[in-house]
């Protein structure tokens, strides 16, 4: 079972990101579970969501304390120590940031993979919503499911032009990261 | 109990509320409920707030109702009526739903449910039997109790002259919902009451009827004086009979012989303290109540235009009218 924690701010589509990630995994025949950290969410407040993906039914319902992966939608949240809490030793972190992975890694003293997700979304969708680009990059890095599965999951929520642009965004984000770089962690 | 040789039993009219119930002698509410159900006919479903009417009509295993009747709580007659109406709609049935409550269940504790029902435009006629206090629990003041009236929770004394506050202007609040039809009526004017019920029954949407219904026990008058007391409430201007369409005054019952409020007040024990000889407060409150009546007359344009040979009392005719300025 793979456990993922998504950190972001209210209004960045954190719960949607968690639901989409779980749904994309579901599209490839896996069992999934996704839920928010159940806060009284207001725009801008730090929020957390959790995802579990497995080949069997998932029964535990506690929050994810020791994720294999963190997806951080707002790099400012890296300043809050709790953001990285409990990450597995060989776990990996994907951060929405205009800066390079090298720069971030040097600054925080641990490996961080950066993706300029807000800028890409602004460019392609016309809105700086980082979640879909991050999920596409996550899918490519982990090789957990093909980009197609994410498109399928999106197709349950969006249609027409919005879906087309998101599909384009997914393709672009997939290109931005090293395919399969986190494969070993994801399939450990 | 009616017998076959009783001429009333042979009348062709429908009785939704049968005789033999346990209301007090001269109960205005029982009379009003009989008139309402008689005019509405058999194809109705009634809901009833907790109160005298519910208690005196349905002591298990008996019931005085000849129409389907549902009682749940004090404050939800309008809400259960909403549910009944929604179900009828879902099933394609067309019976009219009539919700009933006293003034406590309507002006006060059931007010929110009533407002919701009106706002959602349920096809329900809501009838409030207004006897101006919580009578079922033994005469406590309600939002509908008139100013200065004695109840067990607004007793007059050295520091008080009965109820300190005014009677809530419920009809204006109802009017603010802009429902198709709302009216006030009185048991003293049965033809007028029947006509208003029939009018409301024809509307496909929410309608509201406020029926002034004296309570001999609570008001302190003889059971034989119910009609006289109710008529004086209208004739003094204290309880104006009006009709509202979409929130606007559409017609009023004109007062051709306006009566001073003291004639109305003097008949009732609940206002006895207003006639104490040596109390200047009594005179002030009488004047206050007269001013409230005058205000009603002016607001609704109740002053009639002299004697009418066909309708000396205005009992059967409600004229199109309203304030002269409108």
């Amino acid at each position, binding site marked *: 079972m793979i456990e993922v924690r998504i950190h972001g701010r209210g209004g960045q589509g954190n*719960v949607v990101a*968690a*639901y989409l990630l*779980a*749904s994309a995994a*579901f599209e490839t025949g896996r*069992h*999934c*579970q*996704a*839920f*928010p950290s*159940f806060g*009284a969410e207001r725009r801008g407040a730090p929020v957390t969501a959790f995802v579990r993906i497995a080949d069997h*039914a*998932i*029964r*535990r*319902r*506690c929050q994810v*304390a020791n994720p294999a992966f963190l997806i951080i939608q707002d790099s400012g949240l890296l300043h809050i120590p709790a953001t990285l809490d409990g990450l597995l030793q060989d776990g990996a972190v994907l951060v929405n940031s205009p800066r390079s992975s090298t720069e971030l890694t040097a600054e925080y003293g641990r490996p961080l993979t950066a993706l300029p997700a807000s800028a890409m979304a602004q460019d392609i969708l016309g809105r700086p919503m980082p979640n879909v680009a991050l999920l596409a990059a996550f899918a490519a890095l982990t090789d957990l499911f093909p980009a197609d599965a994410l498109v399928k999951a999106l197709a349950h929520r969006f249609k027409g032009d919005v879906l087309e642009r998101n599909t384009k965004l997914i393709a672009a984000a997939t290109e931005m990261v090293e395919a399969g770089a986190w494969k070993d962690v994801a399939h450990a | 109990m009616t017998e076959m040789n009783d001429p009333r039993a042979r009348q062709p009219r429908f009785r939704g509320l049968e005789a033999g119930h346990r209301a007090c002698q001269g109960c205005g509410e029982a009379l009003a409920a009989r008139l309402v159900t008689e005019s509405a006919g058999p*194809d109705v*479903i009634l809901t*009833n707030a907790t109160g005298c009417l519910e*208690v005196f*009509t*349905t*002591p*298990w295993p008996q*019931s005085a*109702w*000849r*129409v*389907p*009747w*549902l*009682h*749940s*709580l004090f404050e*939800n007659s309008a*809400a*259960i*009526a*909403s*549910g*009944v*109406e*929604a*179900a*009828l*709609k*879902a*099933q394609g049935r067309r*019976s009219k739903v009539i919700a009933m409550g006293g003034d406590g269940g309507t002006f006060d504790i059931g007010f*929110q*449910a009533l*407002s*919701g029902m009106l*706002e*959602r435009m349920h096809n329900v006629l809501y009838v409030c039997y207004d006897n101006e206090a919580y009578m079922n629990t033994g005469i406590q003041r309600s939002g509908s109790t008139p100013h200065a009236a004695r109840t067990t929770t607004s007793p007059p004394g050295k520091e008080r002259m009965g109820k300190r506050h005014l009677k809530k202007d419920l009809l204006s609040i109802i009017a603010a919902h802009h429902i198709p039809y709302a009216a006030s009526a009185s048991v003293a004017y049965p033809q007028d009451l029947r006509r208003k019920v029939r009018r409301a029954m024809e509307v496909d949407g929410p309608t509201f009827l406020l029926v002034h219904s004296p309570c001999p026990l609570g008001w302190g008058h003889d059971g034989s004086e119910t009609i006289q007391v109710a008529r004086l409430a209208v004739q003094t201007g204290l309880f104006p009979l009006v009709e509202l369409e979409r929130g606007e005054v559409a017609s009023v019952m004109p007062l051709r012989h306006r009566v001073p409020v003291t004639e109305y007040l003097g008949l009732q024990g609940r206002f006895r303290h207003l006639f104490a000889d040596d109390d200047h407060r009594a005179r002030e409150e009488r004047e206050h109540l007269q001013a409230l009546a005058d205000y009603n007359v002016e607001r609704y344009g109740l002053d009639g235009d002299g004697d009418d040979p066909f309708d000396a009392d205005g009992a059967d005719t409600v004229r199109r009218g309203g304030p002269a300025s409108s």
Partner: protein
Amino acid sequence: MLEALEGSQAIARAIALCRPGVVAAYPITPQTHIVENISKLVADGKLRTELVSVESEFSAASVVLGASAAGSRSYTASSSQGILLMTEVLFNISGMRLPVVLTCANRAIGAPINIWNDHSDSMAVRDCGWIQLHCADNQEAVDTSIQAFRIAEATELPVMVCMDGFVLTHTLETLEIPAQDLVDRYLPPFAFDRMLDPHNPLSLGTLVGPEYFSETRHLAHQALSNAASTIVDADREWQSLTGRSAGGLLTVEGPADARIGVLAMGSVVSTFREAMDCLGAAPAKLIALRSFRPLPEDAIRAACAGLDHLVVVDRALSPGFGGIVGGEIKAALSGMNDAPQVHNVAIGLGGRDVPMEMWPRLLDVPQQGGGFRILDLEPAKLGEMS
């Protein structure tokens, strides 16, 4: 066919499959998503029902009371303060023997205000005469929602389907929504022979004095007690149609020779199921109590046979007494031969996370002894709060 759905969305779909005539909707966290999803199904023409968006939970309960009395299958949902605001009506609905179904998205009760999950709300209306069924996961919640109408209409008793707020309502997970024709076969159209009808005018909700009142209470008690067999039958038939049980009156898992057991209700059961299998703790039985009302005394005694210790998990408490389920289980086992010693703790109040590691902690409770306590209390925080 399996789908990945949020719990609330799945419940809305399940309710739609039951073809309710009237649905009353009022928002309250964490229930809101259920009525939102139902509203969307209505707006999209996928559900034909009279949707009444009321002005309070009190009126929501009143509307379904009226609608049920008028012969329509009726549904509403709420949580927490909303359940409390409904309380007066809930007693009325059961007292009038109306087969209403309500989803309680379980949430704590203030003050202090807290929007997160525990069982304080449904426990507060424990004695309102409703059947109360608890669900461990969203599949059980879907299946129980459909069974609820069948149980309600067979017994003429209202059913409260209790599902943990957020932990179930806001969790997207893999589950199966049954096909419409299967539900139609399982749940025939609602026919109510006491319905309000001008052709057969009945008076419902009449005044009953001392000369008959005790008899009405006796009948209510008898009806609720007898509902146990209907709950079992409804689940059995559902299982024959779908291959899935939603948990009958209760389920027992774990080795037959275990000497210690844990009894719990709701979503913690799901977490404990996994913990039992993968944490390698001492062998223990897990008793998942689905039917809290009626409380199935015989089934509980049978489940406890052979146990030396039983740890009862409460998700609410009665201040000045302790655990509510714990107290009831003690009463249910009293006089039983070789009854286990009952230990009672509360956990997960107001949304406190119940981790997998809670399972071994629970199994350790008998060794620690002592009376009722809140097991996941953090004593250091008490200092901050004084």
